[in-house]
């Protein structure tokens, strides 16, 4: 088949998934809120509602076992064996098990909220499995870098699979957008700590895909991420994943980490465009003497700006307490009650009817809502401080020049996917060496 025809066929086949995703969105079941109406006869037997049996403990052990085994395998494949194929196949298995079989829940990303709420709410306890799912990837990251992201996380796996023609995102955009993950992390912790909402789960872009059902807009979000993921590698992982934000911090101080060349970098530049995630750092040169003074002043300026940023963000976080508190169900109920009583809402909702049926005075509800706003005053301030700190730290980091002589992965951003192995001639040389040795051995045997 000629190259031109191959190119056309490849183009068609690449665009076909787009169409299929659109069709999938249209065809997937959208949940209807209306229940199937029950017959109105008094003597018609209504089947009893059945609840599914609870999950067997064995299944929890299996899931945990798979998690440990998969992370160990991913670490082994990324750091020791350096097998891109192995990592890719493992990610497919993880997608099947942790994604479609477990339907994406419980995952370490969402477990952030479990752990947070368990720490802040005395009436909530996170199960041992959830804590293990949360903690184990952190441990492995401290040891071997973000190997969890490489082949174990189902969200990363699905993005890894659809990254067919990833383009390089300019580094300066990449660094800025990467801060959104920290903002998302802070917001998720705040809302979980106050018992408002689990926004990570609520806005998980791929859970509808894993469960083959969701609301229309969530399916659209899934489709959108997948479509974007065709051309931009791992958009959720790089710019939104709150767990990835934590892993990025831990990975910077990991004991071992995947490297681009197996041993020594020869600065051949072949891996410059290898990483679709912008995680390869190039060697740096010393700045000219004329630029050093400016660099120092710039660094001092950023350091001086840092407390202002933190203070401004803290203030804004405090002032946003009511907006943030609006996500809390008690606040929403109080607002709805007030709108009904002031005539702004013409009809009552099920929630307000249920509240009124409890007999609790409205003033008591308002007082509880008031207390929630008070909580968010503190929480919003802390969130603002966190965001200010993150931005300040990034600006300082961007003002510090680090000396590098080799091409190396950015330990925070690198997800240890192994795509860069193939681009490295040292890697080829090492494999070729192994192959040559085998040939020599065979010849000797003969």
């Amino acid at each position, binding site marked *: 088949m000629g190259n031109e025809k191959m190119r056309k066929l490849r183009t068609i086949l690449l665009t076909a998934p787009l169409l299929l995703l659109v069709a999938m969105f249209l065809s997937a079941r959208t949940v209807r809120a209306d229940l199937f109406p029950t017959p109105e006869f008094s003597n018609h037997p209504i089947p009893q509602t059945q609840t599914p049996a609870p999950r067997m403990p064995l299944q929890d052990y299996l899931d945990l076992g798979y998690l440990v085994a998969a992370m160990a395998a991913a670490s082994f494949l990324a750091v020791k064996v350096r097998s891109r194929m192995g990592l890719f196949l493992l990610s497919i298995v993880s997608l099947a098990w942790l994604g479609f079989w477990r339907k994406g829940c419980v995952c370490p990303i969402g477990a952030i909220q479990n752990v947070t709420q368990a720490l802040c709410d005395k009436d909530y306890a996170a199960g041992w499995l959830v804590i293990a799912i949360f903690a184990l990837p952190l441990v492995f990251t401290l040891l071997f870098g973000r190997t969890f992201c490489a082949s174990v996380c189902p969200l990363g796996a699905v993005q890894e*699979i659809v990254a067919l023609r990833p383009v390089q995102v300019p580094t300066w955009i990449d660094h800025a957008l990467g801060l959104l993950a920290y903002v998302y992390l802070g917001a998720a912790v705040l809302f979980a700590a106050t018992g408002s909402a689990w926004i990570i789960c609520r806005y998980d872009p791929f859970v509808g895909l894993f469960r083959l059902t969701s609301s229309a807009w969530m399916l659209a979000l899934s489709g959108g991420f997948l479509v974007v993921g065709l051309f931009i590698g791992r958009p959720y992982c790089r710019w939104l994943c709150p767990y990835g934000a934590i892993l990025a911090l831990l990975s910077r101080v990991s004991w071992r980490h995947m490297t681009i060349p197996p041993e020594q970098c020869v600065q051949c530049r072949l891996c410059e465009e290898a990483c679709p995630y912008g995680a390869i750092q190039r060697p740096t040169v010393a700045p000219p003497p004329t630029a050093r003074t400016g660099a120092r002043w710039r660094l001092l300026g950023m350091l001086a700006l840092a407390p202002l940023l933190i203070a401004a963000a803290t203030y804004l976080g405090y002032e946003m307490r009511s907006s943030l508190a609006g996500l809390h169900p008690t606040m929403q109920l109080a607002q709805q009650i007030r709108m009904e009583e002031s005539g702004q809402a013409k009809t009552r909702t099920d929630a307000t009817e249920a509240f009124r049926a409890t007999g609790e005075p409205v003033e008591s509800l308002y*007082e509880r809502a008031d207390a929630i706003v008070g909580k968010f005053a503190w929480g919003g301030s802390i969130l603002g401080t966190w965001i200010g700190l993150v931005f300040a730290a990034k600006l300082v980091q961007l003002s510090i020049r680090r000396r590098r002589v080799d091409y190396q992965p950015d330990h925070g951003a690198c997800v240890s996917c192994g795509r860069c192995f193939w681009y490295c001639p040292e890697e080829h040389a090492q494999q070729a060496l192994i192959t040559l040795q085998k040939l020599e051995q065979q010849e000797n045997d003969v």
Partner: protein
Amino acid sequence: MSDQLMTSDLISCRLAMRTAAVAAVFSLVIAALLFYEFLHRSPYWIKDHAQTVAIDVLKAALKQQPDNEPLQEEIRKLDQQARDEYFRQQAFTLSGAGLLCGGIIVSLVAVKWAVTLRRKHPQPLPASTPQDWEASWTPAARWTVGGLFVVLAATATGLILPLYGRVAETSDATARQVTAASEDKPATKEPDKTATAGKPTPSASAPAASGLVKATATAPAGGMPAPPPEKVVTKEKVATSERPTRERPPREESIREERPPREKIATNAKPAKPEKTPVAVDAARPTATKVAAFSQEELARAWPCFRGRGGSGISPYANVPDDWDGASGKNILWKSPVPLIGNSSPVVVAGHIFLTGADENKRQVFCYDAASGKLLWQRDVPSTPESRVPVKLTDDTGYAACTMASDGRFAAAIFANGDLAAYDLDGKLAWSQSLGIPDNPYGHAASLSVYKDLLLVPFDQALPKAARSKLRALDIATGKTVWERVREVPSSWTTPIVIHAANRDQVVTAASPWIIAYDAADGKELWRVKSKQGDVAPSPVSAGDCVFVPVDANAPLLAIRADGSGDVTATKVLWRGEDNTPDICSPLATEEFVFLLTSEGMVTCYDAHKGDKLWEEDLNEFKCKASPSLVGKLLYVFGEAGKCWILEPSRTGLKRVRQADLGEPCVTCPAFQDGRMIVRGKKNLFCIGKRP
């Protein structure tokens, strides 16, 4: 070797592409089938399904023939078919989604495999000099990070700022709801807490009305600017009428008796407890600029407007003497002359007693010390040249018929010529307005009310079509109009009451022919009931969620459930009492009874729930203009001559306990304090209490 590898890669690549093609075609087919299914499945499929139409028809027929078994079987069969179809579609969709997903995954994996096999090594051009790679992007990165921070900050500001526009309104309204209702609770549910050791507890039938607590508001709701005082005065004649009104005879001079100073009642010296910031469900917490002057304890002790909190006439104290004699001084703690005549009843707040007096030439506000009866100050109320015009009115009404109202910080007064003013407790004028001389045949006699920091000013006049009748809510501290409602009613002489019913703070007004309730916070009309036409003088009263409105002597007493919306004449009038409805005196209601008092001395008792007339008792030519009061279980009925019947009502009848004598005519309603009763006679202000 390398050629073999290349050939192998090419074969694998072709295999991958073919696999991807097959998977893609498979997925397309599945997607098409699902899409077709989607198009033919409407959102409420069961309603559009032909079977459903048939089911509905059959169900309608079944209602006519409920025992038709073949019909029931037919419906069951169709229903079963509909359910089978529904679950079939569900299963089809689930299977299709799974297959589609699998096909897409296979296609993607295969394409990825092919892409991997076809990838080529990069061929970067040799760099002549080492490049400062970081310098090429870090400045842009810093600016982008800074820009992102600005975007986030702007987003946060954008979320915060609009809320401030609604903060005062939201917080105001919510604060009024929260604080008013929460402070109602001690009075209604925990009356004992207001009492200290040795002091009797307040009456358990204290009304559930609010309106005395000052909210921590920064701005009036809606930010409505205060309209300029109405200075245009009409010189229309006030029509006189032979119909008797509340008679407020002019006071005569008397000798003030010296009394030893009594221990001062707890004043408003305690710093106000800062109120909880209101809910503000959709707004940030406003900065409090006003601090409530009344604590809950003081609120329970106050008598801030006509007939006390909620206009109930029920004393919060049961330890008031039930025997006194003005001539001998028995249980008369002090008696102070009132400088100017007037028919307004006393109000008592924070150890201060407020009265008004007026004649053709001047209007004055008086403030007495509740402990000693000493006149602390008297002030001339400012007027305009237009309002100084003599007003035609009946002698029964007078110029100072309207009782004052106070929120504990300011006391406001209104007079027959429309002059309205507010003073602080020290007598400093806070503000004054002239509303214009009302077009009122008998003279303006509707008293002021308070709801938290709002002064409620009823001003009904003229005919309905003139649309001059209004109910205003002014900020009592500044006089600015917070809200105002035009009422389609003619002149009336009733005082609006503030109640808390159906989880709402309501202002209930009575006029002809409409009884209208407004939201106390923003004046929004909540409900209305149509009654008969007439001259409405008795004010409404409430107990629980019910309002009792006598309207007129020729109209029945209406018992209205105050939880409706709109015109509830047909739905919320629980019962009507036809007998002995009063013409002047306002009724008195408890959870159990409703007492009516006519100006001829007929006392009638209705069952508050069912509306049954339990009994009636004629007090034998006992002419009254003052509305009855309840102290513990005793009714106090002041006659025009100054005698007071102490009556003990029960379900079966009325027992006359005794008759006390003030010693001078009295047409006003008493105010109650702990162990004391403040009564305004024709000439003097009396304090009745047990002498040590």
